[in-house]
Each structure stands twice: as structure tokens, then as C-alpha cells.
């Protein structure tokens, strides 16, 4: 409705292939990013940073990783949590074992280690597909769960199995306040989102999607399934690894392997399903949804209950949360398999065509 696109014609391929080809969209996104960097730190209190914004940013990054693998390359994974764990523990070990290791470098190196592990555990994807592959990724999940619990070297022989990291520092900037953490994660997320978008809109992304949509045809036009699948596993695991390192070192500070259990893997998968498979924006929608819903329910259910004179226990809230998550997943798979991102895109398309319906 508010789009006025007449006269926005493209005179070069460069202009035609921009990420946001419509100027209105471009300005809106730019405004949003500026607001996120400047506006939000001025407006928001610590609780919101800690409870919502920082988890949202990190989980968005993780969901991006899952989306690359599941949404773009069509390889289902139930072991995303494991990749996060590998990233977190690797980054931890780099940080404590290498003198003078900058935190950012440790985080990125953690991501690289996760990528390597991802390639190893993604290798079965060359032989097995679909459902069988899902099970193969579970093997990774359970293996790493076990490894970080039982192999003491990974946890620097900590007796409880939990590890912790002091405030990290970036070029002299000590990241300890919630605002610092928020800005640090936001910076990383923006950079990584841009890179992800670049990958999926270019040759790499087309190879992934070709493998996803029709692998035999992809091979025939010269796409190597091994290369496409393993790069997807590597990139996905890299993102997850970095997210894992951030989750541990920035969000939690100290953590146990349970932080990256199969529940986390499923949660990430749900983010991608609800948010939108095969859409970068879907990762953000999904993460926002999954971070906000429990908080929303925690606030709302007791209120609703009190309207009817019922006491709503914490356990009940968590059960209702389960039911709502589950139903939404089924709902989205049935009604809109491409998730909120597609709803958003459809809505946007409707606005462009307004007042016409199609």
C-alpha cells in the first residue's frame, strides 16, 4: 500500500541484484539497523537485554546456521546443539590455553573447529539422506554431549563439568555490561547475516538450493553433491559454533554441556520451521518468536488464569508452552511450510499490489 515503485527502474545488473532491490525496503532495513545500534541502547533496561535481546541475537545467529543447512541445502539436522557445544568448548579452550588469545579470535576459531567437526559428522550425508541423515546428526549430538561431560580435558578438568569465562575483551573494550554484550553480539550478527545473505544469493547458495530441490539434476549440470553438502555443513556449523561460543562466553558466562543438549537442537530446528526455511529473515523471526513466547506466556497465562479465578502454576505454564510450540509447528508445516518469513513476504507482496488481491 505504501510502496510507490514507479520510476524505480534498474539500469545495471548491479542495481538489479542488490539485496534489497526496492529502495523503500533498503531504507527501512537501514533505519532498523541504525535503531538497533543507537536507539535500543538508549531505550531499553538491563532486564530486557539479558532476558530477551542478547539471547535473541545469539539464537538468531544459530538459527541462521541451521537455516543454511536445513532451509537452503535441505539436509535435516537434529544435532545443531552439538555444533554449538563444539564451538563453545573449542573457543573456551583456545581462550584459556593460548596466552594472549583475543576473545574474538577465540570465538571465530571455535567456529572453525565446529565447522571441521560439522564436516566430519556431515560426511554421512553423502551416502544417506533425509530421515536417515537426521538420525546420523543425532549421533553427533549424543557423541558430543557425552564427550564434553566425560572427557575432562575439554573442560580443563573442572570437577563439576561446568566451565566459566571471565569478562571478555575486544581491543581494550571490556564486554561486561548487558549493553556491551548486546552491542557485541549485534555487531557479529549483522556481519554474519550479511555474509549469509551473500552466500545464499550467489553461486554457493544456488548450489545448495539445487541440491535441496533436485539433486540428480544438480549433478548433471556439474554441481558436486559432496562439495555442496559439505560446504553447507561447514558453514552451518561455523555459524553454530560462533553462536555457541557467544552463548557460553557472552550470554551465560559459565555453562555445562546441558546448555547444548538435544533440546537446544530441536529448539533451533523449530525456530527455522516457524521462522521460515530458506529465508534469511526467517531465522530472525523464528528466534524472536521462540525467545519471546515463553516470556509472554509467563506473563499472560497467570493473568488469564486469574480472570477465571484459576491459579496457574509455573509447571502448567511450561506445559502450555509445549502445547503451543507443538501446535504451531504442525500448523506452520500444514498451512505455511515457509514460515513467518513467507507470511511476511506475502504480506509485503500484498502491499505492493494493493488494492488488488493478486
Amino acid at each position: 500500500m505504501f510502496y510507490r515503485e514507479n520510476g524505480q527502474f534498474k539500469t545495471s545488473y548491479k542495481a538489479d541484484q542488490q539485496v534489497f532491490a526496492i529502495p523503500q525496503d533498503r531504507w527501512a532495513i537501514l533505519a532498523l539497523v541504525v535503531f538497533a545500534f543507537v536507539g535500543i541502547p538508549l531505550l531499553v533496561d538491563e532486564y530486557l537485554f539479558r532476558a530477551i535481546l542478547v539471547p535473541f541475537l545469539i539464537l538468531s545467529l544459530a538459527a541462521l546456521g541451521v537455516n543454511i543447512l536445513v532451509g537452503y541445502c535441505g539436509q535435516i539436522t537434529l544435532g545443531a546443539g552439538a555444533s554449538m557445544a563444539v564451538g563453545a568448548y573449542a573457543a573456551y579452550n583456545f581462550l584459556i590455553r593460548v596466552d594472549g588469545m583475543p576473545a574474538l579470535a577465540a570465538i571465530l576459531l571455535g567456529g572453525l573447529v565446529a565447522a571441521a567437526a560439522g564436516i566430519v559428522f556431515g560426511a554421512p550425508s553423502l551416502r544417506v539422506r533425509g530421515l536417515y541423515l537426521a538420525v546420523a546428526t543425532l549421533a553427533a549430538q549424543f557423541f558430543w554431549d557425552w564427550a564434553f561431560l566425560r572427557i575432562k580435558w575439554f573442560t580443563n578438568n573442572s570437577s563439576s563439568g561446568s566451565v566459566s569465562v571471565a569478562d571478555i575483551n575486544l581491543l581494550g573494550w571490556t564486554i561486561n555490561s548487558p549493553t556491551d554484550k548486546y552491542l557485541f553480539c549485534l555487531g557479529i550478527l549483522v556481519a554474519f547475516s550479511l555474509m549469509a545473505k551473500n552466500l545464499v544469493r550467489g553461486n554457493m547458495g544456488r548450489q545448495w538450493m539445487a541440491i535441496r530441490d533436485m539433486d540428480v539434476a544438480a549433478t548433471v549440470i556439474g554441481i558436486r553433491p559432496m562439495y555442496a553438502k559439505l560446504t553447507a555443513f561447514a558453514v552451518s556449523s561455523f555459524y553454530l559454533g560462533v553462536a555457541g561460543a557467544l552463548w557460553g562466553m557472552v550470554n551465560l558466562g559459565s555453562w555445562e554441556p546441558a546448555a547444548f543438549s538435544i533440546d537446544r537442537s530441536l529448539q533451533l530446528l523449530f525456530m527455522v520451521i516457524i521462522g521460515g526455511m530458506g529465508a534469511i529473515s526467517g531465522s530472525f523471526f523464528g528466534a524472536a518468536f521462540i525467545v519471546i513466547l515463553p516470556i509472554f506466556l509467563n506473563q499472560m497465562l497467570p493473568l488469564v488464569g486469574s480472570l477465571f479465578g484459576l491459579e496457574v502454576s509455573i509447571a502448567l505454564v511450561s506445559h502450555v508452552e509445549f502445547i503451543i510450540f507443538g501446535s504451531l509447528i504442525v500448523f506452520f508445516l500444514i498451512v505455511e511450510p515457509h514460515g513467518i518469513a513467507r507470511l511476511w513476504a506475502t504480506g509485503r507482496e500484498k502491499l505492493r499490489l494493493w488494492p488488488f488481491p493478486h
Partner: protein
Amino acid sequence: MAVSQSGRGPNSLDTFPRLLLNHAATRGDRPATREKYLGIWQTWSWSQVAEEVRAIACGLAELGFKRGDNLAIVGDNRPRLYWAMCAAQMLGGVPVPMYQDAVAAEMVFVLTDGEIRFAVVEDQEQVDKLLEVKAQCANLQHILYDDPRGMRHYTQPGLQGLDEVIAMGRIHDKNQPDFIPGEIAKGRTEDIAVMLYTSGTTGKPKGVCQTHETFIAAAQSGVGFDHLTDQEDILSYLPMAWVGDHLFSYAQAMVAGFTINCPESGDTVMTDLREIGPTYYFAPPRVFENLLTTVMIRMEDASAMKRSMFHYFMAVAKRCGSDILDQKPGVSTMDRLLYALGNLLIYGPLRNVLGMSRIRVAYTAGAAIGPDLFRFYRSIGVNLKQLYGATETCAAVCLQPDREIKFDSVGKPAPGVEVRISDGGEVLVRGKLLLKEYYKRPDATAEVIDAEGWFHTGDAGFFDEDGRLKIIDRAKDVGKLSNGAIFAPNYIENKLKFFPHIKEAVCFGHDRDMVCAFVNIDMGAVGNWAERRGLPYSGYTDLAGKKEVLDLVRECVEQVNADLSHDAMVAETQIHRFLVLHKELDPDDDELTRTRKVRRGFISEKYAVLIDALYSGKTSQFIETQVKFEDGRTGKVAADLAILEVKTFPTMKKAA
């Protein structure tokens, strides 16, 4: 920008090539031509265009194109075809744009009548067509094609790619750098600039010769009138052979220095229109009609809420929209608020999807436009105006000034144009913009231009009390009912055609006691209507014969009758009986002209049996007709056509 008579000479801007050079010098970097090609809008600046034109001209000269030669131009709107026009003019030759969808026989006529030696054509399709008729056109020696696709194995003599000609031209230009400046200097403003063939509604087409002087004058009057600048964008998608396109996409662009934009293909005109968002727009009423029809069809599919919002705000727009556009006083504040809201919710978005957001001035010409159609576009904020003119007058006789639009008039005479009504009611025109002559037809020229220099337009019209010209119909079409009442078929047909469900209509009544009509339904609109009612149909003929469809059309006709009854002048000519034709009227079957005007005489001969049935009181009539399909095959369509009676209304007295 005005050209002074005394400034005539090599440097005055009185021929198109000189205008081009001037633009290249003064706004060399501004875009002159764009074409959507290979997915993006390829752009050429004025200096690039000047360069290209010069190269084409040199190439043509190299091939032997001389002063006074005619250059046929056949094809869709492609930049290089426009440039070839100017190249011919540079050499003192005359471009003759031809309708690209003309069949071979029509082409032969123009090619021989115009003594064409050189033809610049778009692509293989046109080359094939010309090669087919080459034997019958003794003069035709050189065929130059723009698009080399599929041309690799053509070895016919005289056949060359434009690329090759341009390359040749560049060498020629390098060797004789003074040649082109010399040729341009030789050009005189009273030379013939272009020859446009009339569509031949009656008889054989005639080549209308227009000079640089007349066309530049016509263009200037429009440019000055609407304050056009070099910032305008126009979409060039109408046949190049039509005077309208020549005026808007060539002459005015050359005078004002604005940008012409050529669409990617026929299929993408709507998309391209939306992308470019022209600021200056020109289309025959048919296009506006089709657009409105699609708007209505698409709105019918919208949700109920959206639909009612649409209708509500359209009612608001109808009430006050055009008054607001005209900045007339007397619109209530409430209406202004509602209109502003409607502009946000409906009109603005609507203009956007129609590609009309940026339009400053839009024109329609070529046929009369229904007042309601006209009102629709103006009410949603599109500054649509009517233009009255003909090929013989460079299309620009009357213009409608901003803020003084009357829906049923074509406006006031353009600057420098005299208009008067003959005793017989015919519109006569005199001024700079008249044709020089019909090519090799002094007899015909004498027939239309009388001794005092008045051009007889052949249109019947009158001036209203404000001095605005009203056109009723073609003079020869205006007839009388047997009771003496004036019968203007076009006037009634246009009213019918305003309904989205009716695509074409032909009315009869001259020397008869009542008016009867043939109707063509609009396949898109009625098809959609039928689908939503779950009415199955197999094709046009089937759909047109459905009782429900006939009733639908009858309602439309009755509404027209009600409308006619309000005006004493035409109240007698309400439609009494009608039928819906079993096939769509088609230029390929000679029922319409290439510009889609009804060939009244031809139709009344071809369907004499149907007319007899209409007037003999029958309730149905069998008919079988031969039709030509697109691929050239022929077939037969037969049907039993129902003839329906329509309610008529007593004449209403106009409120005093």
C-alpha cells in the same frame, strides 16, 4: 526554445537532426533513449544517440541512400528504429514508418506507393515478410535488420545487418568527417520530415507528407502548452507508424529533449510501464479502457472489505476527485479529507500498480473516449486529457488546458491553430501543422485542403458556449433516423464500450426507424464473471450465446438507453434491439482497422443478414463466418444468434 522565422539557417533548430545535435551539445549526458533489454534498462545519452544516428546515416549514405529517398521502417519500438528515422532525415531522406503487424499485401501497397528503396526492419520475421513481397516491389533494394538473430544463413542480395551498416558508417565518417555536417546543413525546415500512411479507414492508405516545420511546430505547441521539460519519461510502445507515437515519442522528445523508453517485449509492457513510471503518457482510449477493465476484474476478486472500501472511495473520487485535480473551489473540507484518505488507501496504490504514479500529463487520442472512462482516470488523480487531431494535422489540433477539462469536449484549438465549423457541421482546421501533401496524390490533397487553406477533417463537431470543440462522430458516419433525428453511432458505441463487459459495439440506424446494435463481449471480463458464477463455457462463441451473458449485456444496453434519454439531442437514438456477435471483431478479418477502429461499411456488408434480422423482428438468426487464425489458417464459426429487445425510456426534459 521557440524557433524564430528569421533565425533560419544551419544553426537554427528547425530540423530534427539539428535538434538532435543541439541536445547532444547542451544535455549530452542526459538519457535520451532507454530500452529494456537483457533484463535491465540499457541507456543511451543524447550524445551517444547523436553518435549512433550519425553512424547509421553514414552507413546509409555508403549504401547509396540519397537526398529525397524514402526509408521504410518496420518493427516494434526499438531504439535503433527511432534512430534510423533521424538518420534518414540527416541525409535529407524521408522515413516512412509502417505498421509492423500489417499483412504482406498491405505492405506491398506502401512499399510501392512510397517508392521505397531502403527498409530498416526489426528482425527475421519482418525480413521474411519483406523478402516475400520483394518481387512485387521493384524499387526495394536494401533491407537492413536490427536484430541479427536467425539471420546467419540469409544470403539474399541487399540484406544487411544494421550492425554492419553502422560499422561501415563509422569508417565512412572517419574518412569524410565533413559529410554529415554538410548534409545536415543542407536540410531545410520545409523539407518533408516524415511520411505517415493513413490507416485507410476508407479506401487505400495515403502517404501524409509532413515537413520538419509542421511537426516541430506541432510538438512545440504541445511542449509549451504542458510545460514539458527534458526531465520527462515516456514509454514508447504504440505503433511507430501511428502519428500519435511519432508526435510523442519522436517529435516532442526531440523538441523537449526528454527520454523515450522502449519496452522489453509486447508481453512485458505493463511491467515495464510500472518500472519506468512515465511522467508523460500517451495511449489510445482502448488502452485506458482495457486498464480499467482489468482494474474492475481484479477488484472483483478482492476480499469483501477491500472491495467495499474500493467502491466507497471510488464514489468519493467520482464526487470530488476531478474537481480537486482541477483545483476548483467549492469542494467541502470533509470531501477533501476523504479524498486525501482515499488517495492514501486506494488512488495512490492504484496509480502505482497501473504505472501512473509519476504521470504529470497523460493524453488520449485516436478515438473518442467515453466521458465516464475519462472521469475515472481524472478522479483518481491522473491528469488525463484528450487530444484532437489527425495524421494530416500532426495529431495536435485541440488541447485541453490544465484545470479546464470538460469531459465531453476535446478542448480549445492549440496555439497557432485555427478551427472553424463548416456549414455542413464539419470541423475545418488551418495552421502551421497541416500536411504538405498526400504523397503523389495531388487530387486527394486538393480534396481535403480547400482554396483558403482549410483542412477538412471529416469529423462532425460544434463549439460549445465556452469555445471548446465537441466532436460528435465522423462526419460521414453521422446519419439520420428515418424520423429525422441525428444519429451518431460512435457516440452510442462509446457509451456501450465503457462497460467492462463490452469490448466492441457497432450501431446501425441511418435511414432506419430505430437503432440496433452488434455487441462484442470482453472475453476477460465476462469470462471472469462467468467463472465466479460457476458458468461453464468452451470459448468465445459459447460464452457469447449464454442466456445469462445476454441478460448481462441487456442490462448494460438499458443503462445506456437511460443515459441517452437524458439528452434531447440523442434521446431518439436509444437502442431498441441488439445481438451479441458470435466472434470477436478482428483486424485480421478486416473488420477493424489496425488502429482498431470499426470498419462500419465492411461490417454492414459482411453481416447484412444479421442486420436484416435485427430490423425484421426475428428473435434469432443463424450465421456462419469464415475467420483467419493467427497462424494464417482459416476456419468457420457458426452460431444461432439470439436477438434481444431492450427497454427504452421516454425523453427526459433537461432541468432548466
